[in-house]
């Protein structure tokens, strides 16, 4: 990719600065994250044993929903100020814009996850029985999988009616392999059975991330300029 | 073997419903063509 890193970083820095100043997106997203955890906790009241089996799925579904809320915000601001048209005519390669947006989203969603995880641990009395450090690559790769596709589809759904529902509608089927991998990996790590290993799932997640990051970068220019 | 008949029936029901929607869209288009021709 010929995207000069300078443009990408500048765009990223601008996005973060804007978010920090307005704080509206972050605050509402944080509160939403908290609500999701609480609501999920009402629906299940497992003991510690059971919670290790189901927490993987619950946590990642919660992350997915929080990410969708964050992603819908992403392009809305651009659209409000017609920034998108400015990007289209500028000489900056579309890839830099995409990468900046994706990285920005990744940071925001990670912040959300950092808030949600301790809450889940408390409500579900979670204790990690397997190699806890493996949760780091799982979370990073899993979050990137959701965010990279989410940013791409958020851009796509800009030109559609029912914009807010179109994003999850497009995103969920495509991210199913990533979700399967993260849920399986998280459950394996939580349960900590020495006969099982999350390594395969982590490799699969990495493959998914590489494939779809390339696909998004390759097709983003087309989608941006589609007129 | 109700499941067998249900499966075969469901298959054709699905196909017939789809063909009906295609036919409906076709009739609607024909109506639009007539309107265009009138003008």
């Amino acid at each position: 990719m010929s995207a000069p890193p300078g443009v990408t970083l500048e765009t990223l820095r601008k996005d973060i600065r804007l978010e920090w100043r307005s704080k509206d997106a972050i605050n509402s997203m944080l509160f939403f994250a908290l609500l999701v955890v609480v609501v999920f906790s009402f629906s299940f009241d497992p003991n510690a044993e059971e919670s290790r089996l189901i927490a993987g799925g619950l946590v990642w579904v919660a992350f997915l929903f929080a990410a969708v809320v964050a992603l819908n915000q992403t392009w809305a601001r651009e659209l409000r100020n017609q920034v998108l048209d400015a990007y289209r005519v500028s000489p900056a390669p579309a890839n830099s814009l995409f990468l900046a947006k994706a990285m920005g989203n990744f940071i925001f969603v990670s912040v959300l996850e950092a808030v949600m995880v301790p809450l889940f641990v408390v409500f579900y009395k979670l204790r990690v029985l397997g190699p806890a450090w493996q949760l780091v690559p799982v979370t990073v790769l899993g979050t990137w999988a959701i965010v990279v596709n989410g940013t791409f589809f958020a851009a796509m759904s800009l030109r559609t009616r029912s914009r807010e529902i179109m994003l999850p509608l497009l995103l969920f089927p495509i991210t199913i392999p990533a979700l399967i991998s993260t849920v399986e990996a998280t459950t394996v790590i939580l349960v900590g059975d020495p006969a099982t290993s999350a390594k395969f799932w982590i490799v699969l997640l990495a493959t998914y991330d590489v494939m779809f990051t390339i696909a998004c970068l390759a097709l983003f220019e087309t989608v941006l300029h589609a007129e | 073997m109700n499941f067998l008949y249900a499966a075969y029936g469901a298959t054709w029901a699905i196909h017939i419903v789809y063909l009906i929607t295609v036919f409906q869209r076709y009739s609607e288009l024909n109506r639009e063509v007539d309107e265009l021709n009138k003008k």
Partner: protein
Amino acid sequence: MRKAFPILGVLTAIFLSYALYLALVVAPREQTMGDVQRIFYYHVPSAWTAFLLFFINFLASVQYLVRRNPSTDKVANWILITVAVVTCIASVVIALVPSLKEAMPKDVEPSAIGTTGVIIAAAYFVIRKFFSVEAVDALAVTTAEVGVVFCTVVLVTGPLWARPVWGIWWTWDVRLTSTLVLWLIYVSYLILRRYSSSGQTPVMAASLAVFGALDVPLVYFSIWIFRTQHPQPVVGGGGSIDPRMLHVLLMNWLAFLCFAYLVCWSRYRLEIMKREVEEAQALQSL
């Protein structure tokens, strides 16, 4: 062409009736499962037809994205030729070198790799020859829609077969989950086409189709490994099949292919007509 349609319609109806007769009467009764097994003669051909249609949609989507620009068009052509040649060479090499042959998964023939590569390239060029850039998009919509119809049949007949035989409506094994994901992706594709404004629709939909095509093998692979860690009921035949059953299966598939062809033809003509009407309406409003 148009006059042939009713005749072909009648012939297909006769063929389908004959295939139904074969499935219900001629095919031998299965030992363990009984008559319910006959669902197989509708379930499997529908699945193969759906996958074929989605495959054509994938090629058509790639073509739409690639052919609008002459340089990418040429690059794509060369990539496909390379794929065909490389896979053939790979087949021969793997068959000849014993250590590589051992490394292959057990139910995969080396020659299948070459055949797959050649079929993909051949299908791409055939579509390219017979469809212009705009027409290829109409082909994409058509195959997606009809593919979803057949895939729905698969997802409905599958559980109806599984329930009496294995006692469960559904399980998360490879084939079921990847078929469901395929269905979901293409339904979202159709919804995207309906809800986006007409200028950018084909490009966005084509991109989604490409994403979907990347996704499906990944889903298949991820759950295949999952299956080897946890035992799952085997869906579909793993071993050899009674030749009479094979005959009935193939006849039903052929009948459904003829049917699918006619349905696609109708839907395609509808799509072309819709575009002409829209163009005429646009011209009139000027």
